[in-house]
């Protein structure tokens, strides 16, 4: 449904400024890995899979790895005696817009060596799939669900992948993508109507308890329905 005032409003605001200058967030560059033992070890161990390394803000080391072997590399980082990144602080994603790949970001910390490392994986827009790391850290469960909800990245073998913040039958898409308008795709009137059309009882069903027990069976009940596809 078209909303006249909405089109007027959308032109008013600037939106995220994207210069479009750099096409690659890592720039294909390799900064000097000195100063961070884990980066040196990563480069020697998984030379081909590490596609970039930069140092930002003075001390923050970022490594770009191949998205196909994220599970393998993260497990190695977690279990190697000299690294022991036993804590996953954060999992998130970044959309740079303009058709550039979405990047999944893992923020690791080792409580043993008091060392932090950021690992990023690029995912092309037509292949938004990556292995889930819930088997390594159970903290990843909700964080990955959130990335799935807001960016539409599918995590393979995640035990319970469904929307977490938005309503389970949300049909407008994945809100944090750059092509998603700030005020949503539908008009306000439509959004209000849809919101009240959700029956409160709808999410109070006994089948809910089957969720997460058996992912294969659970998916059809409550929402992996995608708005854009």
């Amino acid at each position, binding site marked *: 449904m078209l909303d006249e005032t909405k089109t007027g409003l959308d032109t008013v605001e600037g939106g*995220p400024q*994207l210069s479009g200058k750099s096409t690659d967030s890592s720039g294909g560059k390799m900064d000097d890995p000195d100063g961070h033992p884990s980066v040196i070890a990563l480069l020697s161990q998984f030379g081909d899979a590490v596609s970039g390394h930069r140092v930002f803000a003075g001390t923050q080391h970022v490594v770009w790895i191949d998205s196909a072997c994220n599970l393998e590399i993260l497990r190695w980082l977690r279990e190697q005696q000299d690294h022991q990144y036993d804590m996953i602080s954060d999992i998130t994603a970044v959309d740079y817009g303009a058709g550039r790949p979405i990047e999944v970001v893992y923020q690791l910390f080792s409580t043993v060596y008091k060392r932090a490392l950021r690992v990023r994986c690029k995912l092309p827009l037509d292949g938004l799939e990556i292995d889930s790391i819930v088997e390594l850290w159970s903290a990843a469960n909700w964080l990955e669900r959130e990335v799935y909800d807001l960016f539409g990245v599918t995590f393979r073998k995640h035990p319970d992948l469904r929307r977490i913040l938005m309503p389970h039958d949300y049909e407008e898409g994945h809100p944090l993508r750059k092509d998603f308008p700030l005020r949503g795709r539908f008009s306000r009137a439509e959004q209000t109507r849809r919101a009240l059309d959700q029956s409160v009882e709808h999410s109070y069903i006994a089948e809910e308890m089957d969720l997460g027990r058996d992912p294969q069976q659970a998916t059809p009940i409550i929402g992996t329905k995608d708005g854009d596809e």
Partner: protein
Amino acid sequence: MSKRTVEFNVGRNPEMGIDGSVVDSPILPFDIPEPDLDTENMLINIGPQHPATHGVLRLVCELDGETVKRVIPHIGYLHSSFEKLGEYRTWNQVVPLTDRMDYLAPLIYNCAYVMTVEKLMGIEVTERCKVVRVICMEMDRIFSHLLWLGTTAIDVGAFTPFLYAFQERERIYQLHEAFTGARITTSATRVGGMMADLPEGWTDGLQDFLDTFPDTLEEIDRLLTRNQIHIGRSQGIGAISAEDAINSGFTGANLRACGVDYDVRKDQPYYDYETYDFEIPVGQHGDCYDRYLCRMEEMRQSVSLLRQALERLPGGPIDVEDPNISLPSKTDCMSDMESMIHHFKLITDGIPAPEGDCYMPIEGSKGELGMYIVAEEGGTKPVRWRIRPPSLVNLSVLPKLAEEHLVSDLIMINASLDIVLGEIDR
């Protein structure tokens, strides 16, 4: 026919007996024979509008009698899309959003955000600013813990600590108001400094607070720490081992209650926290009672930190002296054309950032609070602004903690995690 023994062991604290003896006897030792009936698990729903969920959290529980077999938390009932909104704002315009996220400790969020932006841009704030921010953060740690204390006490049936806690909170409200003009939504920080310097006499007000607050804290302590009801409802409830806690992402007092001495202020120090003299309280059992003890001790440590910070508060400017970052003074703007144009340019264009990303953890009142910012070369708005929400990760452990406990324990466990829904849902 199976048997179940109900017993409450209240005797972990050896000083507890009235006559000085060690109390270690079960209050209610008796056996309940379980009838041999066909039973079915029951599904109940708590929330999203329920006073015991501390906000709009919804818990779907599967119960066997009164025992919780399974909990599924549902969140997102307060999703206000801060992260998307931030992408449409310049660096300084994001600050007012940060305190609406965690309204229990607004200044900590203000500081965490600008700290990350400054780190990305390579700005070194002045000495005075550092100390003022430490004061702000420690004050709000007390502010947030007090609300947690009051509402948790209500959940276990004690109303008085709530009133005591709110009286003390009211004094911090006044300090907030004297400094920033607002009671909750402070928005006190700016990139490269603060919104304003501390007003005259403000430190005296804080000193006043520090003089009398420990007494009230002791009073609340007397009401709860050895209270049989409180102990019975929190000792041994919702315990988790240190290894599990790290693996599932616990941070803050929740993690320290399990015996892990991880505190961002010590492990990745910022704002010279390594030069302050303070201790990290660490628990042993990882249950609700230890979380309570850790938070109580943290408040005492915060008081001592505040005293130290007040002592070392240096003079000098509070904003960095860089015309590309700090605004000219208001008097200059009104009398001088160049300053006015400078002011206008800085407000409308914003501050350009270098390319890159930056993740900066700080010790928030709920746990490790991380801000993650991605910027484009010369961008005046974030490409991505992400908050690592400590409460979200802490809450995701709730199903594991509450299993095989009673429903009333579920409420206690949920309260002891110290969650704030504004930041979970963002």
